[in-house]
């Protein structure tokens, strides 16, 4: 049985496009969230849309679940294989298909690396705006699945803002096209639903992206505050003053120490660091930067630096972007959390995180996209100490509950995946989740595309949507259905 199936799949992708040996399969048993591991039945490496369609048709016929995978950098277990399922890795589909400067569009295959899009259009001074910290290795296909953000989405928006068209293989192997190079295609915005659906609605095989002209000037200000409270107050004042910086990032003392140890970004040793980036026309940026400086000083910043060159700016960002990995310097193990709160809830939530951290006897480092309230608390622990890992997981969940209680979200950019599906009912009611799954039933009635992710309780698509109540006249035999 298995050998016949493998032979058929090998016929589609060629001998080098099919992985079945246990040793090699281990590479694919998890994504960037390594505490969930499942060995897939096989891994397929198609190099064209046609091959993806053929593979999916076999899966559909045999009712084999499949999980699409890009670079595997996701942090929520979205690309975690499912029992008895196959993984479809899109890494070989890595061509930039078209670059159209007059219309500011780029068409790519899903395996293209995020930063390579910018690399390709950089000479004409364009860039691809979504910049997750993993941008040098993560793929556009994965970004589409997760609706990836990044530090600059405060001003530039998320992946969904920059995707204009998609070619998608649905779970029965059929090919559909959402959107295109022009805007506002007639009909439902299925592209809007597909982006961020974590691979549960099908596989994107071609993506049309919007590219953005580089601003005339970029300035990055670094301000040292006594604590996150003062830094948070400065952020609120900037927003209240009507500013929309390209990025506002915050790191607390523990995160600063870790980043320093890892990449020597030359950060001041302070309670909280604020990194504010403004971009735009020179005169505009100069006027606003003076105002930002004033706001930071008014809120107690004791050191303010403005990165003077591209090299200095790159170093400032290097510390921030390396912050997660840097935790390895100060702790043997850590959990990266991703929650969102309304910005104004920051002081309360920080105080609560501090209290919970003390209670649990575990350190928590904090890295935020402060402009949009996206928190990345890093819970530090030592797996070798009995009970530590469980305590860290419990603390990490408690932090998400704080986010929900503050009116926020359980994930701002990492996705729900396998990791947070148990939290979904805390954020949404049963009718909310049931309604989302109606979309899933329309796209993938057999639930073969990355099943068991996002939703804690999959809805059977045979279920009649909503309850049907017979009309009293019908029951009484007075009227018939018309």
């Amino acid at each position: 049985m298995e050998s016949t199936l493998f032979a058929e799949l090998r016929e589609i992708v060629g001998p080098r496009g099919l992985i079945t040996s246990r040793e090699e399969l281990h590479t694919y048993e998890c994504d960037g969230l390594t505490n969930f591991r499942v060995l897939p039945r096989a891994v397929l490496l198609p190099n064209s849309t046609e091959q993806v369609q053929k593979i999916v048709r076999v899966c559909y016929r045999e009712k084999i679940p499949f999980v699409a995978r890009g670079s595997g950098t996701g942090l929520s277990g979205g690309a975690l294989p499912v029992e008895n399922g196959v993984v479809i890795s899109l890494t070989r589909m890595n061509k930039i298909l078209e670059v159209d400067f007059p219309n500011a569009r780029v068409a790519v295959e899903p395996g293209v690396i995020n930063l390579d899009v910018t690399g390709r259009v950089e000479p004409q001074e364009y860039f691809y705006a979504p910049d997750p910290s993993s941008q040098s290795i993560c793929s556009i296909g994965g970004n589409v699945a997760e609706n990836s953000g990044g530090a600059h989405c405060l001003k530039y928006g998320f992946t969904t803002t920059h995707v204009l068209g998609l070619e998608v293989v649905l779970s029965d192997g059929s090919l559909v096209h959402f959107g295109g190079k022009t805007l506002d295609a007639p009909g439902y915005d299925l592209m809007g639903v597909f982006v961020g659906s974590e691979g549960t609605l099908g596989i994107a095989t071609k993506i049309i992206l919007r590219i953005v002209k580089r601003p005339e000037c970029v300035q990055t200000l670094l301000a040292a505050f006594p604590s996150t409270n003062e830094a948070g107050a400065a952020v609120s004042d900037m927003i209240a003053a009507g500013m929309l910086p390209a990025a506002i990032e915050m790191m607390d003392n523990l995160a600063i120490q870790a980043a320093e140890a890892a990449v020597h970004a030359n950060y001041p040793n302070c309670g909280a660091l604020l990194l504010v980036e403004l971009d735009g026309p020179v005169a505009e940026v100069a006027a606003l930067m003076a105002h930002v400086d004033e706001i930071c000083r008014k809120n107690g910043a004791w050191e303010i630096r403005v990165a003077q060159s591209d090299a200095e700016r790159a170093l400032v960002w290097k510390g921030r972007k390396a912050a997660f990995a840097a935790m390895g310097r100060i702790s043997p193990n850590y959990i990266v959390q991703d929650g969102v709160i309304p910005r104004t809830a920051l002081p309360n939530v920080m105080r609560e995180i501090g209290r919970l951290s003390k209670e649990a006897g575990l350190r928590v480092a904090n890295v935020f996209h402060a402009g949009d309230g996206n928190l990345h608390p890093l819970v530090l622990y030592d797996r070798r100490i009995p009970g530590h890992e469980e305590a860290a997981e419990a603390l990490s969940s408690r932090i998400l509950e704080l986010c929900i209680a503050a009116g926020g979200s359980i994930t701002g950019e990492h996705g729900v995946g396998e990791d947070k599906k148990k939290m979904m009912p805390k954020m949404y009611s049963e009718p909310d989740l049931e309604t989302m799954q109606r979309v899933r039933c329309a796209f993938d009635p057999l639930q073969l595309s990355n099943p068991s992710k996002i939703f804690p309780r999959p809805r059977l698509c045979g279920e009649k949507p909503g309850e049907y109540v017979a009309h009293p006249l019908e029951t009484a035999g007075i009227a018939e259905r018309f």
Partner: protein
Amino acid sequence: MDASVSSKAIANTFEADVREIVTAKYVRTAAESDAVAGAQPSLVVEPGSEQELAKVLKLANSAGLAVIPRGGGTKLEWGNRPERADVILSMSRLNRVIEHAWADLTVSAEAGCTIAKLQETLAKHGQRLALDALWPERATVGGVLSTNDSGALRLRFGSLRDLVIGATVALADGTVASSGGKVVKNVAGYDLPKLVTGAFGTLGVMTRAIFRLHPLPRETRTISCVTADAREAQRLVLALQNSKLAHSALQIYCGGEAKPRVDVLFEGTEAGLTAQVEQVNSMMGSATTTDAGKDVWSARQAICSAEKNGNAEFAVAKFATLPARMADTFETIATLSVGKLRWNIVAQATGVGWARFEGEASAMDCALREFRANLERGGGSLVIAHRPGGITTFDAWGNAGDVLPLMSAVKQQFDPRGTLNPGRFVGGI
């Protein structure tokens, strides 16, 4: 039993039940003025709460009655004529601004709240919904979202899909579901606010929405420039787009045979504006620029106006083309209209534009068909917002492509009995 008698019995029972829910004061027989694109409903219901609305909807769904949700009624002509229209579900009583969390730059409002009322509330804290919708005095949050109406500010701030962060919808079976939330960044679950944006109320009735906000600009400046022809206008627009200027809006306006005018809007600090305006002037070369007022930005509303210009029949259509094909599009319109129709166009640098034609209905029918075919060949689209009397069956939507079966499947999941706006949307949905 005779079908018409049975349906009448159901309608009577329904009406009695609805009176129970919303009280008799908020149920009335529909007038001629309540017609929707030529379809005459029989009842107008004004629920006072989300719960009442869901109950009424569920009852109508069970009774097999077709429901047309209505906000300010400014765009009821858009889309195809509904196959059936029994009940108008008016959002007029669900009109509150629920919460303006100004320090978090978000607002939540009920669907019947007018855009003008929303903007007034936001302006108290120096903020705005960065959207220049049509007829803001009457257009509502729900109506603007359902028709996906956006204007020139879209270039800088995105369209509604980029501004809406949460929505609550009542489904035909009475389910009330929310998705998204009140934080700007949120990837938990499917993005249903985007699904219902532009869905013309065919999936559910929007009851509440949450938006991200932007600060009101400190200063604004509009620069206009009359160009020699469509080619020059396009060259200028592409040059501005390829520059490092940070303009908020950019459009080409062309009134029939008159020379095309390019309008640019800048927002920001006085220092930033002055520097940018100087740069634009230098880019315009020989063409003269004028420091225009903000009136040029009402061009879209004038084109979309439902008022007849004298006795002439008219058509209004929204088109989407590639930014670099705008001159081609203008020339196509001119060629199709020559000697038969008068026309006005406004096109944004995004490639989305609006055209108004005036003249004989038969000539418009022919021109619209050819215009649509031309746009679709280039990957674009043409959606009709107003049809003249002679061609009321002209399809509003055009070709939805290979994704139509999937759209129908989504509709089937949300509204299996075809209760909401039946036949109004693309492909007969």
